[in-house]
């Protein structure tokens, strides 16, 4: 077997190195995590033809086939041409060449998303549609980026643990003339969210300051006195990460921004990365990239030429709270 394999080049091609010498795992992107079920046949065919017959659901919601021998990489790349074309070019509208060379880059990772409001009763936004719009902005780029999209503040897709986490929000509208004064929205808000509603003489008063934008009040209401805002809003969490060094939860960068603002902001990600990395697309987690720049520099570059909507709020500062892997201050050997 040829042992001269450029694994870094293969990784950029979305083939991950196996502990078995000469074997790789292909990762097919599923931006926003929803595709036609017919594409399962694509990964099944790859796994059974060139892989070891098994299928792995990627931790970033890719379709993975492990155990592909190096000599088959070109065949697999040729086979996935149609898949890449249909998903990236047709569904996401990306302007890229369709060829037999496989994925052009792994820089911007697959966009993770929950099922969102196309199915979920809690969802505020359509996560797949948003993911496809976002994919168009971040892929194909060699600059590293992990984006997760959650349909609501339950954050099942862990927007809190990625470079750029998006959470779908609503600012519910209250129609007092439809309110029966039952106070259920206030009870539910207190129980599952932040308790910003109060029943005062049979009508609701709201403390907008602490509203998380979940929309639980709307679905709790028996009489339709609450409605989701026609305008959809988003929260952006940045700098969350896992990993061996300093894992941490992301912190709030933007709150109550519209989709237009979100897209304008993400358009700046590549120039932000390029500026901080001096135009070299190094393999550096987004959180570390933000650390390298410093939050205020990050904010300046990411909000460049962005016109914020009136409701938008921007973090003045960020206090990171990292897991103290290095200090071990809270773990001790038990006393014998």
């Amino acid at each position: 077997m040829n042992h001269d394999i450029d694994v870094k080049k293969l990784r950029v091609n979305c083939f991950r190195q196996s502990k078995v010498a000469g074997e790789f795992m292909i990762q097919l992107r599923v931006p926003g995590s929803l595709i036609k079920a017919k594409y399962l046949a694509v990964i099944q065919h790859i796994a059974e033809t060139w892989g070891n017959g098994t299928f792995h659901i990627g931790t970033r919601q890719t379709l993975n086939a492990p155990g592909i021998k190096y000599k088959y990489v070109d065949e697999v790349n040729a086979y996935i041409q149609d898949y890449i074309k249909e998903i990236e070019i047709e569904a996401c509208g990306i302007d890229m060449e369709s060829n037999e060379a496989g994925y052009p880059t792994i820089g911007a990772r697959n966009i993770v998303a929950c099922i969102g409001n196309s199915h979920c009763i809690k969802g505020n936004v359509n996560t797949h549609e948003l993911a496809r719009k976002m994919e168009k902005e971040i892929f194909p780029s060699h600059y590293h980026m992990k984006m997760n999209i959650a349909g609501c503040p339950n954050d099942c897709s862990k927007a809190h643990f990625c470079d750029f986490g998006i959470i779908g929000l609503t600012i519910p509208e209250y129609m007092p003339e439809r309110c029966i004064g039952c106070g259920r929205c206030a009870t539910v808000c207190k129980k599952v969210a932040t308790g910003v509603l109060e029943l005062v003489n049979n009508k609701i008063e709201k403390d907008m300051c602490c509203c998380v934008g979940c929309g639980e009040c709307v679905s709790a209401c028996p009489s339709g006195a609450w409605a989701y805002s026609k305008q959809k809003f988003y929260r952006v969490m940045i700098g969350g990460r896992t990993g061996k060094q300093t894992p941490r939860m992301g912190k709030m960068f933007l709150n109550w921004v519209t989709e237009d603002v979100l897209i304008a902001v993400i358009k700046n990600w590549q120039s932000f990365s390029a500026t901080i990395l001096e135009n070299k697309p190094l393999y550096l987690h987004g959180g570390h990239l933000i650390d390298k720049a410093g939050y205020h520099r990050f904010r300046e570059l990411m909000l460049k030429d962005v016109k914020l909507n009136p409701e938008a709020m921007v973090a003045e500062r960020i206090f990171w709270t990292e897991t103290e892997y290095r200090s071990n201050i809270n773990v001790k050997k038990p006393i014998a």
Partner: protein
Amino acid sequence: MGLQLTNAQFNQVLARLSAKYAIYAPKNFPLEGRYSDTDMVRYDGITQVEDIVFERKSDMSAKEIVTPINETIMFFFNGQVQESKIPQKEILIFARACDINGFKRLDDIFLRNSETPDYYYQRRRNKIKFIAIECPSQGWDTCFCVSTQTNDTSDYALAVKSTGESLKIEIKDQEFAEYFADFAQNSTCQYQYQPVLENELKLTLPVINSQEVLTRLKNHPMWKEYNRRCVMCGSCTVNCPTCSCFTTYDVKFATDSETGAGERRRMAASCHVDGFTDMAGGHTFRTSAAERMRFKALHKVHDHKQRFGDNMCVGCGRCDDRCPEHISFSSMIQKMHTAVEQIKQELNHDSK
């Protein structure tokens, strides 16, 4: 004999009618549904056929027009009281048979339950005439109006059936013929209002024929599952065309004013919700979801009938449509029927 008018032609009729009538119909409220990116269909004033939702059953019933969820009934100022005013216009409501029959139940409660009819209900009710909307041939999958014998109605001035681009119209109340005079020559067709004659759902309503059967049904284990399933939100009562309970409360316009200026409001109440009919001293009659469900169910298919002759439930199925926990009232009625028959057999057995 009927008429068939294009939507545009019918809009001319609506324009003429609107001089005398406030016209209400089921209307779509985009994105106002319970879940994100879903719509709500409820009653509101309309000006054109295109405003009317024919293809979907409304989420909310037509009762909101005559018993608004919130209604200011009087104002106070310096020790004086003034009654609230309502619009002068007569009222026309596009409604389905279930809704029109629902008004009969509301009439039972508001106008016939005591010697004194309810003034605030009556002042609106007296203004109302109906335009019956013909339903799809079997209604919708949660409808059971045939089982409750509320599938048909004769209480309408006009009846309409939408074909999408046009309306077929039956003019029953000849007072309305003048509004259609322009079209009487050239737009005639064979049309007469057709009620739903069969639903997909076919129920047998329970017949509770003795106090003993009633007592045993009240204590029957069938209710227990609702302690687990029902969240006591009251959605099923808010959109029920026959639920009429309300509460009253006062609003002071300013707490620091010595004029006592304020208003008294009626607000819809629900027997599923905490606080319903609580008494001074804090006594609550029914605390559990199962007790509240039983209370409502018996009211709908027994108690009202005992007092007024007709079952209260009109089989519209809106309670099923709107329940966030997918509790089906029609299934409950079936369970009640089964339980009642079982109880009757036990009683027969006991008496032998």
